[in-house]
């Protein structure tokens, strides 16, 4: 517990660092947001300056930064220029889409990667092993966005099996409760909407899931192999335990530790995958939002989303650490 609290405090300097870097990058970006805001409105220079003053953009940079941090602590990340709404509202509205999408992708990745990795390690150097490893190596080399496009071309455009964009069909009505469509449709017992949301999730999740599974498969395999070679496994086998028990109770539970950690550490990269995938599938999440915001120079949103992604990443790392302590009690006491 103490260990986790300490970890929690350690994320504060990281968050501050991230915010300083993002703040600085945004300052270098050419183009004046005020100019952009008033383009084509015929506002007088005085009006522009008044807006600049009201947004605090005429103050020295360090002051702007400190104001930003204090406002952010209160949950105020500024005002979106393109939506004319608070950044936090813009992000929170789209966040469930991204989380729902990430979780289903991770789910697909895990149900593919765990059996594949375990079988490959148990049947080491067999044809199955080679097939799994070849598949994983090939898969790791395929750019995620290209896999997405191929799936759309094949499954959506040619076969018309699944929808290729959006979270739900226009004609399906769903009452918003949590913003997670699968949960909302179940809460309001709207089965058609649940089905519709689910089939919209398949292609995007498959795209990202394939990308994640290649990496996790390799990880599970190598981690299993490392454990299988250890003395305690020989002991367990020697005392006559069935192979299944040895593999599941002994090998797998130990092999899980590095797997969980590395999935957590790699989550940043996996989140990056959502950005491109959301653009391809017109998925209304925060990944697509940040790209739109870069195009339209909506820097408060860009800043907010990157901070938000960082926060998710750090949270996942802490959760990973917590799981780590659960799986291996020795760690918490070091």
């Amino acid at each position: 517990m103490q260990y986790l609290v300490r970890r929690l405090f350690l994320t504060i300097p990281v968050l501050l660092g991230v915010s300083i870097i993002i703040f600085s990058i945004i300052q270098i970006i050419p183009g004046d947001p005020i100019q952009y805001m008033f383009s084509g409105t015929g506002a007088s220079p005085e009006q522009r300056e008044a807006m600049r003053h009201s947004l605090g953009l005429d103050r020295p940079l360090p002051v702007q930064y400190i104001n930003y941090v204090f406002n952010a602590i209160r949950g105020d990340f500024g005002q979106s220029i393109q939506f004319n709404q608070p950044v936090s509202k813009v992000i929170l509205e789209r966040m469930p889409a991204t989380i729902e999408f990430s979780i289903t992708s991770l789910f697909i990745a895990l149900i593919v990667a765990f059996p594949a990795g375990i079988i490959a390690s148990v049947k080491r150097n067999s044809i199955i092993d080679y097939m799994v490893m070849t598949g994983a190596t090939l898969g790791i080399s395929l750019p995620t966005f290209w896999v997405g496009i191929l799936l759309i071309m094949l499954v959506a455009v040619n076969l018309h099996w699944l929808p290729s964009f959006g979270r739900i069909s226009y004609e399906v009505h769903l009452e918003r409760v949590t913003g997670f469509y699968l949960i909302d449709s179940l809460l309001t017992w709207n089965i058609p909407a649940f089905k519709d949301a689910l089939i919209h999730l398949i292609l995007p999740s498959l795209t990202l899931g394939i990308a994640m599974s290649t990496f996790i498969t390799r990880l599970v395999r190598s981690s299993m192999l490392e454990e299988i070679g250890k003395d305690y496994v020989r002991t367990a086998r020697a005392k006559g335990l069935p192979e299944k028990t040895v593999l599941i109770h002994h090998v797998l539970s130990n092999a899980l530790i590095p797997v969980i950690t590395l999935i957590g550490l790699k989550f940043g990269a996996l989140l990056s995958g959502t950005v491109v995938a959301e653009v391809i599938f017109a998925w209304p999440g925060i990944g697509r939002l940040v790209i739109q915001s870069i195009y339209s120079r909506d820097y408060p949103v860009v800043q907010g989303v990157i901070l938000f992604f960082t926060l998710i990443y750090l949270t996942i790392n802490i959760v990973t650490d917590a799981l780590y302590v659960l799986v291996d009690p020795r760690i918490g006491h070091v």
Partner: protein
Amino acid sequence: MEAQVTNVAEIPGKPPLQQSRFIRVLRAVLRKKTAVFGGFVLGLFVLIAILAPVLAPHDPGQQNLKLRLAPPIGLGLENASIEYPLGNDNLGRDVFSRLIVGSRVSLVVGVITVVLTTLLGSMLGAMAGYYRGNFDNAVMRLVDIWMAFPDILLAIAFAAALGPGLFNLIVALALTNWVVYCRVVRAEVLVLREQEYVMAVRSLGGSNMRIIMLHILPNVLSSILVIATLQFGTVIVTEASMSFLGISVQSSVPTWGGMLADGREFMRQAWWLATFPGIAISIVVLGANLLGDGLRDALDPRL
């Protein structure tokens, strides 16, 4: 997998030993068919990129609206012409030529970014590991911060800040990717700096810079080489993703990512436009991954 590499205590700086080690590693890599295949693919890619102006049968920018969305040959489709083996895009430009010329951006971005990140990351990592103390702490906190960014967003943010252009794209990618090298090199240097030979050089009056550059870094080289090879593929995919999103070089220059983005608009009528650039990217990245895996097995089974 055989342990050709004895260990880091092997005395560095002695030419005969280094040479024999090089040959041993080369043999180990050559024994792996997949690694040889990877090396072959990368070599071919480099050759194509360098010779692109000679190899491309047509001007990649030349438009011919009569040939708009003409299909590739070999599928029995109408309008296919042997002169344009992979078909034509929405402006009637030759896909094959654009693919060949597009390899140049990928190669230049891949190579220069990897060289820059290697220099930046390894130097920072080596100095952090060697000097320890406050410098090390500062560098490692910076690494923590960098790790917390989703890579592609950081690269996109840098690219947006620096503006479009090849050079700016490379700088953005280099500023994003140095962390891996820094972490690995630091970890290895932490061990190496305690070795007796380092103390020997120090007692002979060797300066810190001399020790790092001549005695420590050469011993980390194998790890750096492995990461650099694997990173080459990653950088090419990131570049392609950014070109795909339109945050990259000017759109007049053909890039594989840019071709994919254009092709996506026409995937209903012309599937080949979004297919071939993706195959090209995948093959090159696969080559880098196979060679990287082979090198890792030969040089450093621990990585």
